[in-house]
């Protein structure tokens, strides 16, 4: 079908009749780009304070952003047809690499997550955050939607293999994110509510066996600490107690940039990575938090709009899944720092220091832009 569209001459479509703008030719979604730039600026601003006023850290992060933006723009140039064609191969390659990690991977603190080739270390599970939803979307795109039971089962299989491989590394956080990104595709494909409710009931029923047999001691510890941070004041609870104090003491207006006592005096652990929102909340107050949330909400809105205007089911499902995954980052990170959710290593998207997650996220936005600037064929 897709190839057929490409061959269609320039008639019958108002969009195509118009000369495409520069942004469109470069496959840039301008509102999304502006929102991302605003968020980047805000993030770097906070990072300078969170890193202990270390300008070097800001420059380093700036370089990561540069790479990430380039990746995003390159990602936007690739057509959706090509993504769909590559998806199965990327998926197979990704699973092979995950198996390689299991066999030859290197790691720290008992987790084997990286693959070392020469002096270069990378984390294949990161790439799978994009590949898994792509594979599921590609698998479903050619079927009639909503998918029938057989295809739902197939999609679940596609999600389960990499998720299981990552779970045994063990990396619960990433495994859940990847599973979620795949399931979001199914959700956006319109699977029946009875499946969704059935899954929720099954999940609730399997919670007990999971607790008894599947979860590692450190994961249980995290959940217990989340439920009662006071139980391990010097260990895991320390972070949450400190971050709650930082957030709470920010008040409405905040203590002012670089004035956060909790963060500047280094009470706050990992203040520039996973816990950066606490610095923001302390120094800019609830005002700053709401500003950030507004930016996130606008990005999410743009993502949903792009999905709703997408031309193909593949593009639609990708847009929906990427947007929802982005939301999961925001929700899990802000929830965990505020003591609502267990501490899993999820960064605050586009604000936390660090390169790997940033590049993946921006590559996701690149795909989103590819969806948004896809050639129009239907006049609405």
């Amino acid at each position: 079908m897709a190839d057929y569209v490409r061959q269609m001459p320039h008639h019958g479509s108002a969009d195509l009749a118009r000369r495409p703008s520069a942004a469109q030719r470069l496959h840039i979604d301008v509102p999304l780009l502006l929102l991302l730039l605003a968020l980047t600026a805000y993030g770097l601003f906070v990072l300078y304070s969170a890193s202990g006023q270390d300008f070097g850290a800001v420059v380093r992060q700036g370089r990561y952003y540069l790479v990430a933006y380039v990746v995003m723009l390159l990602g936007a140039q690739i057509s959706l047809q090509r993504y769909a064609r590559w998806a199965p191969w990327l998926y197979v390659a990704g699973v092979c690499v995950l198996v390689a990690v299991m066999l030859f991977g290197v790691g720290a603190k008992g987790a084997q997550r990286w693959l070392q080739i020469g002096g270069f270390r990378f984390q294949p599970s990161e790439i799978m955050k994009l590949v898994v939803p792509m594979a599921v979307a590609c698998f479903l795109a050619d079927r009639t939607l909503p998918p029938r039971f057989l295809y739902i089962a197939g999609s679940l299989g596609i999600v389960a293999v990499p998720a299981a491989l990552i779970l045994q590394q063990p990396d619960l956080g990433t495994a859940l994110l990847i599973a979620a990104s795949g399931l979001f595709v199914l959700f956006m494909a319109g699977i029946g509510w009875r499946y969704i409710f059935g899954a929720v009931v099954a999940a609730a029923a399997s919670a007990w066996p999971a607790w008894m047999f599947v979860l590692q001691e450190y994961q249980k510890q995290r959940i217990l600490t989340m439920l009662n941070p006071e139980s391990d004041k010097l260990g895991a609870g320390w972070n949450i107690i400190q971050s709650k104090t930082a957030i709470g003491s920010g008040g409405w207006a905040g203590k002012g940039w670089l004035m956060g006592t909790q963060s500047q005096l280094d009470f706050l652990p990992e203040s520039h990575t996973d816990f950066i929102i606490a610095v923001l909340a302390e120094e800019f107050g609830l005002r700053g938090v709401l500003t950030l949330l507004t930016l996130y909400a606008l990005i999410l809105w743009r993502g949903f709009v792009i999905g709703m205007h997408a031309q193909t089911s593949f593009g639609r499902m990708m847009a929906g899944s990427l947007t929802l995954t982005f939301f999961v980052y925001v929700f899990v990170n802000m929830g965990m720092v505020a003591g609502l959710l267990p501490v899993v290593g999820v960064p605050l998207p586009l604000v936390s220091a660090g390169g790997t997650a940033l590049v993946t996220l921006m590559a996701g936005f690149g795909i989103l832009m590819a969806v948004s600037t896809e050639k129009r064929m239907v006049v609405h």
Partner: protein
Amino acid sequence: MPQPIALKDPHRETRIYQARSWTAIVIVLVLLGVIVFRYYNLQITQYETYRTQSESNRVKLEPLPPKRGLIYDRNGVLLADNRASFTLSIIRERVRDLDGTLAALGKIIDLSDGELEKFQERLKRRRPYEAVPLHFKLTEAERARLAVDRYRMPGVVVEAQLLRHYPYGQLFSHALGYVGRINEREAQELDESNYRGTFHIGKVGVERYYEEVLHGKVGYQNVETDAHGRVLRVLERFAPTPGANLTLSLDINVQRAAYEALGNRRGAVVAIDPRDGGVLALVSTPGFDANLFVNGISSKDYSELRDSPDVPLFNRAVQGQYPPGSTIKPMMGMAGLMSGLITPDYTVPDPGWYRLPGDSHRYRDWILRIRGTGHAPRVDLNMAIEQSCDTYFYDLGHRMTIDRMHDLLAPFGFGERTGIDTTNERPGVLPSKRWKRLALNQPWYPGETISASIGQGYMLATPLQLADAVSIIAARGVRHVPRLLRAINGEPVPPTLLKPLVTEPAYWDAIDKGMVAVVNSAHGTAKNLSKGIQYQMAGKTGTAQVIGIAQGAVYNEDEVDERHRHHGLFIAFAPVEAPTIAVAIIVENGGGSSAATPIARRVIDTWLLGSSDFEVPDNG
């Protein structure tokens, strides 16, 4: 791709997608609302609480590090304790002008460049508001001088700390190991929460092996402080659980006897109680003062230890791998008996050398050089052990073949770690065709079997492995994992039994008889040990070549460099009727076994009689 019959309906799909999008948007908004509500709750509703908590961090959580467990010998003698020591530390967050403060402190007490450098390193890895140590072990006078001036230097604190102390310094350095300051790599691996407030961790030896038991569990207290960080009152307190006290099977008297008997020579002594595998002595000389390591050894002291040709940091008892030489012969004898290749009465002709069929090379017996002939026209097992006859074992080894030798010697613990409860143990080498193929990628040559049958060539064993093997002979096949630990908090730790070596009692009798003859008969290679002895000792001497000697050349002890002299070895157990001690001794470059034998007498005397007046000859 074959399409299913059902047709895609783009309009329906779009409709469904839009419905799903709106559902998703609603869910997202609800969840964002939860986040907003949570932050509102923290930042507006509970603002006062958190502001008070954060302001000058008035309420402060302080870790209470547990007291490290003590270590005793089997008689209750304290081998490792904790002593109060005063440390000058700096809380970086409370210091305005760090360089100025350091300069001012430098006028009051002596601060070396090394100390300042280490301090800067620690400063980078500190936790917030942590007192970072600058200078350890303040003297009384220094403390007094500091007390006068300290009020002018905010952030400078003097803290009493419990520091590990080893009262016997060198004597137990290798047996106990030591603790040192936690380094970066260790900090990443340990349980952060349980080590808050703790700066030391076991680095090697028992201190490392039993780190978890010795460390204990951290406690904490919530304290209210004033703006200067002074504690006003304790709000709540959870006491730490101190680490467990360990009682080791080591006996300080036996340990000291071994250490003193080795004197200033390089060597190792391991003594094991064959009844339970308890290690009575584990000595490696030269040792070092373990106390040096507790607070970060100075680079001068460290390079001195590291660069010494005597490698004092090397634990010869468990890390040193030496050719066992003739000390392998009792085990070889047992291997021969068990294989059926020999009986106690079997004899071998001994011209003083041995020749492989079809080979002109003569494998010489050591006696040839002295007497110009063999031990006797025909030699049996008893004489072969008593007089350490090489020819007998050359013949046995050749007939046994290397792989069979490997399988029959393995139950004595050669070629693999004994599993003793300390660090850095090495496995030695028990050669086989497979081993040589894997390790050197070479085929096995028949001549190498000849060397192996008298414990030379590729065969290597640690002194601990030798002691363990003798202990198995002494216990007539009962095998234990050698253990340093005897009790935890006074609670005895049961010995770990291994699958025993089961064979004919007559075979054990034959080996015992040969080993008794080594010490007690007129021709025994260690006969001067029996002088004035009050119990029956069984033993076996050994000499390990350090350099190869060419065919026909003569080894002359006075002509070779001291470091190229033969290693002297001796293994023994006593009393023969009911053994309670098995020892293995090596004296590096001792020249021959006579350097090692008197040490055994001193060690066993001390264990059985309480003391020893046996003279150790000076020549060594």
